[in-house]
């Protein structure tokens, strides 16, 4: 059997002296939606950053389409077709919506056209000349997702895309992720909202203290769901 699209093995990461990831192991196959679930501070965001090469120090192995990423600078990693939607959204105040949307360079063929993007996020079309940070929280989140869909990247790293948003917008983002999956995107999703994640994902990894402690497939929903709730119970 061919190797999965993304394979993470024994991944460690540090912020200065703080050792945050202690040997993460997981993988994502082409076309899957996979979540990383875990409590605050478990290391989910750091895992995405370590894949992208933007933590101060990391070791271990991250392979994408068989190519080792540890050791590559971040811009080379992005060019291989990995795109990131950060937890804080990262909309630029000194750019208008149009410039924010066009900012990430196209890295491969097959990205969504502008028409397709505006079909997914009709609100953005009317706001193109607004300053990026003048958008509402929900619109900023849509913009942050929209801009990585044009680039042709096939692996999307989404960090808590529903955090702090109204239920209607959470539903819209859920529909969007489902449609992206249908279109063949591979998605690694970090979530705290497990009821949201449970409806979308093929598999869940539970992260605790910088390690993967369990893996639950969507198909073992009954007993799996109890385990999930137990892990996430505060």
């Amino acid at each position, binding site marked *: 059997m061919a190797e999965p699209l993304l394979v993470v093995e024994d991944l460690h990461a540090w912020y200065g002296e703080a050792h945050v990831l202690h040997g993460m192991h997981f993988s994502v196959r082409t076309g899957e939606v996979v979540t990383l679930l875990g409590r605050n501070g478990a290391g989910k965001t750091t895992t995405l950053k370590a894949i992208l*090469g933007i933590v101060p120090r990391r070791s271990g192995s991250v392979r994408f389409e068989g190519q080792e990423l540890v050791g590559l600078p971040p811009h080379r990693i992005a060019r291989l077709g990995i795109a990131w939607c950060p937890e804080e959204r990262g909309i630029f105040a000194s750019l208008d919506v149009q410039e924010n949307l066009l900012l990430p360079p196209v890295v491969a063929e097959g990205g969504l056209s502008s028409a397709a993007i505006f079909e997914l996020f009709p609100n953005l079309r009317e706001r193109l000349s607004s300053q990026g940070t003048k958008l509402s929280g929900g619109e900023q989140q849509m913009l942050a997702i929209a801009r990585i869909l044009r680039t042709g990247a096939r692996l999307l790293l989404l960090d808590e895309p529903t955090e702090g948003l109204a239920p209607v917008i959470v539903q819209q983002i859920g529909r969007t992720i489902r449609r992206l999956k249908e279109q063949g995107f591979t998605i690694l999703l970090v979530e705290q909202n497990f009821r949201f994640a449970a409806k979308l994902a093929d598999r869940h990894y539970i992260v605790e203290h910088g390690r993967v402690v369990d893996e639950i497939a969507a198909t073992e929903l009954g007993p799996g769901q109890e385990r999930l709730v137990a892990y996430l119970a505060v």
Partner: protein
Amino acid sequence: MAELLGIPAPVLFGQLLLGLINGAFYAILSLGLAVIFGLLNIINFTHGAQYMMGAFTAWMLLNHLGLGYWWALLLAPLLVGFTGILIERLLLKRLAGLDHLYGLLLTFGLALVIQGLFRNEFGSTGLPYAIPPELRGGQNLGFMFLPNYRAWVVGVSLAVCLATWLVIEKTRLGSYLRAATENPTLVQAMGIDVPRMVTLTYGFGVALAAFAGVLAAPIYQVSPLMGADLIIVVFAVVVIGGMGSILGSIVTGFGLGVIEGLTKVFWPEASSTVIFVIMAIVLLLRPAGLFGRSG
């Protein structure tokens, strides 16, 4: 003879022109500082020395290679900009993430070293540099005599400043630059080679300083300390305009040049301090500068 506010018109307009010329140099130099500060978070105290290097490069191109003013205008920014690229790669790069103070100390020390080297080689008396033949002479405008070279300096400075502003505000490259100024990590994670952009940006800012140096060579004498005197005023301009603001540095540069020139007419004793007085007032009322975003 015509008079305005009791001042003979030729005197008034003459000082206004001088003010515009100084303002042109303030604008180009503070623009370079603003671009560098935005992306590198470094206050480039070497800027005055790099302006001087531009003027000396023009002088050396002429006296050693026989290449005149127009070649110098092209080559000096490239050559001095290249030394800037080396400085960024070899030295400034190591300061990333450290306190502002380190950048200040390094670039200030570099300025002293560079000025010392040039003084050792060329002495401290100024060297003359002739106005190119195409730009000699002038126009009689009726109310004043306008030397062609001075008109050229004001015009070309304005053009360079506006072109730089347009590139930064209206092009794709400019949107990379603005975005990387806000959040370099995210921009690099989108696939843009931010470290290379930082290096080239420093090189560009330095090239602007060298360009100003070539423009200045026929007006002021070419001397090792020509930048040291000017740059103090330029830093005041930067503070007034707002650290890192592109448009602010252009408008403030020209504006303060004119104010300085007019002060020379109405209250000559105050002309060398007026900019610093304005700086103090602006710092009290708007600490982020006239065009700066506070916070």
